[in-house]
C-alpha cells in the first residue's frame, strides 16, 4: 500500500496519490482502488485519509455555514441572495420579520432591498433544492457598516489559523471586527478606514501566500510595520 507523495507537495488534478488501503478525503477520488487528486492543491495524509487542500475552488453550500451574501431580488414572499456559490440562496420573509408575513401589511423592499449585504446562516440545502438562509440568530442580519472583500473559499481556514490564532492576531493588531463568511466573503469593521484597509491587506497577503510556511510571523511583522507608519502619520 504505497503512497506517492511527500507531505505538503503541490499536486495537479489526476495525480496518483495512493494505492490500496487508504481513504479518500477532500478533493480526491478513488478509481480501481487507487486514489487520485481532483484539484490543484497540497496533499496531506491524516491517518489513513488522503486529503488535498485545494489552491483553487468555489464555495458549495453546507448546512450550518455562516455566509455573507448580496440581496439580488425582492420577491413575493422573500429575497433571492447571491452567496457566491453555484446556486442562488433564498431568504424567506417570515424568517426575517419573526412574525407571520402578510403581503398586504409588509413592504419587503423596506426591510431588505436589492444590493443590501447580509450575514446569514444556511438553514437547509440539498442536491434538489436551492439553499435556504436564516438570519434568526444573534450576529446575523443586514450589514450596516464596514468593508467587504472576497478570497478563495478554501483559504478561509488559513485566514482563521490554528485554533483561530491568525484571525485573533489580526483583530488584536488592527482593532477591527472581522466576520468570515465560509463562502469566501469577509466583512471588516473597524474604528477607521485605515485600520480596515490594513486588516484587508493582511488577509490578502494570507490568501496569496497561503501555501508557504512561516506565514503568521510575516503577517505579524507586516501589521506591526504598517501600524507604526499609521501612528507616525497621525502624530505629524
Amino acid at each position, binding site marked *: 500500500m504505497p503512497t506517492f507523495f511527500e507531505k505538503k507537495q*503541490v499536486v*495537479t*488534478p*489526476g*495525480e*496518483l496519490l495512493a494505492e490500496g488501503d487508504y481513504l479518500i478525503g477532500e*478533493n480526491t*477520488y478513488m*478509481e480501481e482502488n487507487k486514489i*487520485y487528486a*481532483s*484539484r*490543484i492543491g497540497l496533499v496531506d495524509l491524516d491517518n489513513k485519509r488522503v486529503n488535498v487542500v*485545494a*489552491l*483553487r*475552488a*468555489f464555495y*458549495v453550500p453546507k448546512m450550518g455555514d455562516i455566509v455573507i451574501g448580496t440581496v439580488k431580488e425582492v420577491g413575493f414572499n422573500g429575497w433571492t441572495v447571491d452567496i457566491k456559490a*453555484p*446556486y*442562488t440562496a433564498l431568504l424567506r420573509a417570515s424568517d426575517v420579520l419573526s412574525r407571520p408575513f402578510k403581503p398586504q401589511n409588509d413592504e419587503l423592499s423596506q426591510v431588505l432591498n436589492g444590493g443590501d449585504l447580509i450575514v446569514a446562516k444556511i438553514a437547509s440545502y440539498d*442536491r*434538489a433544492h436551492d439553499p435556504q438562509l436564516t438570519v434568526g440568530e444573534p450576529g446575523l442580519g443586514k450589514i450596516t457598516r464596514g468593508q467587504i472583500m472576497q478570497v*478563495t473559499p*478554501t483559504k478561509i481556514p488559513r485566514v482563521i489559523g490554528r485554533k483561530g490564532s491568525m484571525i485573533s492576531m489580526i483583530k488584536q493588531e488592527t482593532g477591527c471586527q472581522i466576520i468570515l463568511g465560509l463562502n469566501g466573503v469577509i466583512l471588516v469593521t473597524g474604528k477607521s478606514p485605515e485600520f480596515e484597509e490594513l486588516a484587508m491587506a493582511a488577509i490578502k497577503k494570507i490568501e*496569496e*501566500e497561503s*501555501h*508557504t510556511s512561516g506565514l503568521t510571523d*510575516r503577517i505579524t511583522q507586516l501589521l506591526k510595520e504598517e501600524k507604526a507608519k499609521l501612528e507616525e502619520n497621525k502624530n505629524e
Partner: protein
Amino acid sequence: MNEKPEKLIDKKGLRLDGRKADELRPLKLEVGVLANADGSAYIEHGKNKILAAVFGPKEMHPKHLSLPDRMVIRCRYHMAPFSVQERKSPAPSRREVELSKVIRESLEASLFVELYPRTGIDVFIEVLQADGGTRCASITAASLAIADAGIPMRDLVVACAAGKVDDTVVLDLFDVEDKLGAADVPVALMPNLNAVTLLQMDGILTPEEFEKAVSMAMEGCKQIYVMQKEALKTKYMAIKEEVEEE
C-alpha cells in the same frame, strides 16, 4: 508558402519546418492570464496562439437549459478574424460549431458533472493565430483553464495529433502538412487514467498506419502533459519562491 512544395519530407527525413517525424512543435503554456474569468490559460503551440477562459459553475441561464441531475457544459470554439491569412468571418462557421461540440465532449469526460446538478460552466476558446492542430491545442488549454477555475476533475485532458504526409506517419501536423498530407488523427487523452476522450480521423490510413498514428499521438500527449502540469504548478510555485527568497 503559397506554392505547393514538391516534397513534404526531404531525403534526410526532415519535415518542412525542420522537425523529425516524431518531434513536437515548441510549446509554451501559461495559466491564469485573464483576471475577469474564473479560470484561464494561454497556449502557444508552434505558431498557434490560443486563449481559453472558463466561467462557473453557476446557475444556468436561460434556466430551461439546466439539467436536474448534472452540470451542463457549454463550449465556444471561435477563430478570430485575424487568425488566418484570409480574413475569416467572425460569425461561427459550420466547422467551429462542430469543433465546439467535440471539444466540449472531450472535456466533459474529465469532469464530475453529477456533483453539481442544475448548474453550468462556460468554456470560451479564442484562436488568435492558427497553424494547424488548433483543436488539440484548444483542448489542452481549456483543460488547464478548468483546473485553474477550481472545478474538480478526474485528470487534465491533453490532446495531440498525428497524421500521414508523403507515406510517413508523423507527429503534430502543422497547417501545410494538414492541408497537403494524406491523413490527420487528433487524439485527446487523460494520461493518468489512460483514457481517450477524443479520437477523430480524416483521410485514409491502413490499419497498421492508424495504429502507429494513434500510439504516436498518445506519446505526444504524454510529452505535452508534463508541460501542462508544470504550467499549472508554476503559477503557485512562483509565489512560494518569491517569499522564500525574501
